[in-house]
């Protein structure tokens, strides 16, 4: 009972934040519903009613798009027809597919935050990880190695590439005090340019394509969890869950994790206690990059199947939102990633069904971050007592003066 109550208290702020953001998103839908609002003069009731019902239609489509129709799933499972089952559960599996990289990058953000580093470079680390995996996979295409071996090597390459891209800002911060927010933002753009550059040549580029996209990697794939047509859900998702467990274990059960957290809260106290604060920065950023890179690797080899410059699609920024929403707890990251995965998948379906653009989601996600980061706002809107979701290491004092 106590556990339930404490869980409820912990969920209150994130829950109300998401709810508030969705309501404001609904307001956005209403005031841009020109078709209905144009009748405001002639028939205000219909105009407003229509606009409001547009919100419900939109969010309804979003929920259906994210979770599917339970009765349909039940019937499909009863008949046992593969195709029916696949169609019925596809919304649900697509939600998990969308959640997979979000878990990886969310964990990446959480681990760097815990160590007092603000990793905004998730996008760059993810895409370079994807590039590393792509290069290895394509290079080994004709090597005759079993595809599972190629898969493992490709994922390993993604981890190394991501870790390297994370290590750079960690190293610069530890050695020169360069603020990681600035360096990771800049490295995101450099990473994008590197990927574009890599996709010029015929080695990676899909033959005859005018767009900078890579050959599609059909000869190597992450094994699916269920073999059904058009179901993309694969073991990458399971690896993501395992990684959440690993990160949790690392942070709270090992001495390295203790050092990371200590350095995150107080670099000087960590130094006085005999820890290497600089080492923790580099380690945390490398781990962070490795996780994001791995997410990129699993996307490009598994669920997406080819590399393009917009592979990430803002995952790095969404990951910041969900890591904050999760209070930087790995278990919370998984839950928040599932929520964001559902929003993403559902949001696309909403776009198709009702014409409400998917991009509304970015706006909603921004509002979620705002509410989570400003519990006072939620407190004054909803008249409830909420506690901050995250005992986030304070960024400002650890930032060296004058680097941003």
């Amino acid at each position: 009972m106590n556990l339930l109550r404490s869980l409820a208290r912990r969920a209150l702020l994130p829950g109300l934040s998401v709810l508030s953001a969705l309501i404001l998103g609904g307001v956005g839908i209403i005031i841009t519903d020109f078709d209905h609002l144009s009748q405001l003069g002639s028939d205000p009731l219909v105009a407003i009613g229509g606009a409001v019902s547009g919100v419900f239609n939109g969010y309804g489509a979003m929920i259906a798009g994210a979770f599917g129709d339970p009765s349909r799933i039940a019937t499909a499972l009863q008949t046992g027809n593969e195709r029916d089952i696949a169609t019925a559960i596809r919304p649900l599996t697509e939600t998990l597919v969308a959640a997979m990289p979000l878990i990886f990058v969310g964990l990446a953000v959480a681990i760097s935050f815990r160590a007092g580093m603000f990793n905004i470079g998730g996008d760059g680390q993810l895409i370079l990880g994807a590039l590393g995996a792509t290069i290895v996979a394509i290079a080994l295409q004709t090597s005759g190695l079993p595809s599972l071996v190629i898969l493992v090597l490709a994922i390993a390459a993604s981890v190394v590439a991501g870790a390297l891209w994370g290590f750079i800002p960690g190293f610069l911060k530890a050695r020169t005090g360069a603020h990681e927010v600035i360096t990771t933002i800049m490295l995101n753009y450099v990473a994008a340019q590197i990927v574009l550059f890599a996709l010029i040549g015929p080695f990676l580029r899909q033959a005859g394509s005018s767009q900078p996209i890579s050959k599609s990697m059909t000869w190597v794939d992450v094994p699916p969890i269920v073999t059904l047509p058009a179901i993309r859900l694969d073991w990458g998702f399971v690896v993501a869950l395992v990684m959440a467990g690993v990160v949790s274990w690392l942070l709270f059960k090992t001495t390295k994790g203790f050092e990371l957290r200590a350095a995150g809260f107080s670099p000087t106290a960590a130094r006085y206690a005999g820890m290497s604060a600089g080492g923790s920065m580099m380690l945390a950023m490398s781990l962070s990059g490795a996780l994001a890179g791995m997410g990129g690797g699993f996307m490009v080899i598994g669920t997406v199947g080819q590399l393009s410059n917009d592979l990430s699609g803002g995952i790095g920024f969404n990951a910041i939102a969900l890591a904050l929403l999760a209070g930087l707890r790995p278990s919370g990251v998984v839950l928040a990633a599932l929520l964001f995965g559902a929003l993403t998948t559902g949001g696309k379906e909403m776009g198709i069904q009702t014409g409400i653009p998917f991009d509304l989601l970015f706006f909603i996600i921004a509002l979620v971050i705002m509410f989570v980061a400003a519990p006072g706002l939620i407190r004054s809107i909803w008249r409830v007592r909420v506690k901050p979701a995250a005992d986030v290491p304070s960024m400002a004092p650890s930032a060296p003066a004058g680097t941003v």
Partner: protein
Amino acid sequence: MTTTAAPGGEGVSATTTSARPHHEGLAARRALRNARIRGAVFLAIGVYAFYLASSAFSTPASFLFRFFNTGQERFEIATSVGLLWLVSGLASALVGGLQLWRGAAFRWRPWLFVVIAPIVVAVFGALLDGTTANFTNVLRGSLELATPLTLGAMAGILSERSGMLNIALNGKMLVGACVSVIVGSVVLRFTGNVIVSTTIAIAAAMAVSGVLGLLLAWLGIRYKVDQIIAGTVINIGALGITNFLFLRVLGRNPEFNTPPTVAAMQLPILSDLPVVGPILFSLRPYVYIALVMMVVLTYFIYRTRWGLRLRASGEKPAAAGTVGINVIRIRYQALLLAGLICGLAGSYLPLATAGSFQMDMVAGKGFIALAAMIFGAWHPIGAFGAALVFGFADSAQALLSVLGVAVPPQLLNSVPYVITIVVVAGVVGRVRGPASAGQPYEQG
């Protein structure tokens, strides 16, 4: 030191512990050592440029300049890449020599431009590899492309000088761009007047961005939201809302996406000057506004009461607070102004270049503006210089791709980002920003 100061100076050394002369001695020695290293680096760059020159005299480098805005008269500087490297080498060696000669007293930062400018031209010449380039267009392009960056950097300087980190420049510019297009299109439709609609469009863009600036301040001050998180909120939110508006409103109703455009303006008399007229005095009004703003801001930040208080708020807010300065009000003012400038910068993109709004049309320029601010050491003039370098990279890249010169555009596109990383890492010499930027201030 002036004569009145002299007794004071004597008094200091007479009344304090021996720590003082000691302190001065070591700090000076360290400054001298740094100065020597810096001088050696400049000299090394010079020597390397001479080396590059030795093998490049046979490669011609020719730059065309238009004489006048009208007519076909051209003025060509035909030289060789080798000569350009030679000039670069001389400039760098000169600055290195000055540095070594003058020691720690040498104010080297402004001279950096003397080193960088010829190198940039030489690299450009080397990349052209014999192809003739229209330099008038490149330079015009540099100034034009530097304009939104300059304006963005000014906004960044205002907020960070007040003590508020501002990574939200990008988002505010994006919203400014979108608002200017919608308002401009509507007003143009109703009035048919380009000047009126442009003015109202820009004013609206500034107003909305200004509100976003206040939102950023409000989150950071009232709710103590980490300023980086608050900036991220605005960046993501701006992307989401403008994409949403584009897809839901502008895409379906093109009448909302046909704004007035701002054409280049020929300044009377000055634009008729040969060579420099077409380059400097026939640009869009935005460029002149940005330059005027640079001068005005420099004056305000360094010469006025408000500027003194602004800098105090960013350096040591507690010191300002205890003498009765309302630090929080100053921060709100600074972020409001920064927002207004961001709106102006954002409106440049659709009104001056693209002619319509497109999704994510700011494309990271807000972050490059942030980079220019840092590269320019939080000084308006420095930031303009940095923006000019970035603008030149952009402009040269555009020309090279038109000419079909085989240089990957990705390389030049990366220049601002890489330079920024190098600068914040303190490789060229550490720049120091406002000491208290990013830290919330508690007013009693």
